[in-house]
């Protein structure tokens, strides 16, 4: 190797390191950038229409903790927080309207607010969203899974439970790449990042509430009583 070639080689190595350093520093800056966004209320759900709706009038009460829920991303890994309260409340409403004949929305859970007006009270009580890191089956790799769980209770007018369930759904998460890094890209990334697991959660919610035998028994008993 001539002296000139050695100098060229050194120059190329130096340029490569400088380029890598710039990329690295800009990425470190990204990890420190935090965004605050709201998820849209009307985000698209993937719930399919049911063959025959549940022939009951339902009142929906969403707990205030759900209405004000926001997901706060973990430092470094998730750059920001997303207000999800409105999106979740709207998804509760749309999911139930997809399966019940009639749904009214309650602001208060007092008996006066709903008894006499509807057949059942549906309470969305808690929500928990966590990002988990799981090993793949072969144990060699890890992947990120967003686990969402919501607690539901359905009560009759006498306040007795007809149905209770904690619906747990999982959605595999892939990192969203932003390059070049812009605030709007980070905001869009965070929004989509949380809407995907919500779609999965509400599809499962619909399936679970609709496929359980609770309402068939309740409707049959109501018919018997009327006779």
């Amino acid at each position, binding site marked *: 190797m001539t002296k000139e070639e050695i100098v060229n080689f050194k120059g190329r190595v130096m340029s490569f390191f400088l380029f890598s350093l710039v990329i690295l520093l*800009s990425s*470190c800056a990204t990890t420190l950038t935090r965004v605050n966004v709201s998820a849209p209320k009307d985000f698209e759900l993937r719930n399919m229409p049911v063959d025959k709706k549940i022939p009951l009038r339902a009142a929906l009460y969403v707990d205030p903790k759900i209405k004000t829920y926001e997901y706060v991303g973990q430092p470094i890994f*998730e750059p920001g927080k997303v207000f999800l309260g409105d999106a979740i409340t709207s998804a509760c409403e749309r999911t139930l309207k997809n399966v019940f004949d009639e749904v009214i929305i309650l602001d208060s859970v007092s008996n006066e607010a709903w008894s006499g007006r509807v057949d059942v009270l549906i309470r969305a009580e808690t929500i928990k969203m966590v990002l988990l890191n799981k090993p793949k089956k072969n144990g060699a790799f890890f992947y990120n899974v967003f686990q969402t769980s919501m607690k539901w209770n359905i009560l009759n007018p006498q306040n007795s439970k007809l149905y209770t369930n904690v619906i747990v759904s999982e959605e595999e998460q892939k990192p969203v790449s932003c390059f070049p*890094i812009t605030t709007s890209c980070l905001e869009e990334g*965070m929004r989509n990042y949380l809407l995907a697991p919500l779609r999965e959660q509400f599809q499962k919610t619909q399936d679970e509430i609709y496929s359980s035998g609770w309402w068939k*028994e309740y409707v049959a008993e109501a018919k018997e009583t009327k006779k």
Partner: protein
Amino acid sequence: MFNDEARLNTYFGDNLLKKGVLPVYIVFENNRAKGGYVLLKEQSKFTTKVNSSIGSQDTSSTNVIGNNPADERSRSDAVATLAAAVPAALGEGATVFAGAPLVLGPAGFVVGTVIGVAISSYQANKERVFHNIEEKQMIEKAVYPGERHSGFIYFNIKEADVKNIEGIILTAKNLKNQELEQLFISLK
């Protein structure tokens, strides 16, 4: 009943029994013609035999291994729940972690991954075990005729006492009349 080390490691990533937690896998099926039931896992108990009433549902004739093995006749402390048993066994303050970055540029992805892997290696095992336990637990769910529900119930017990277990008493609530029904499952 999961009291085999290899099985515990496969399912939970740790030998829980050494930490005083015995996982029991329950399949709860409603074969009645009518009525929904909820299994009340907090009221589940395991029993050991005092006299010859193996398989009896009469709890008065059985012992439940509690936190005080010296007093085998005491059964007041034997009810174990996930909330009580697991954090105590694994240490409080377990949190969720993420092992890979989310919204980053390409190089940030590399940096984040390296950091993620490093953090994972420090705190992963305890948390992973905790999450295995949490996500495999039996959740509260109404089970109507023809439906089935399953999951783990965790009992607080010393490893040495496992051999004394005769069976498990489960309590289910009838959602229609609110009555409690007890079911005995022999583990011998």
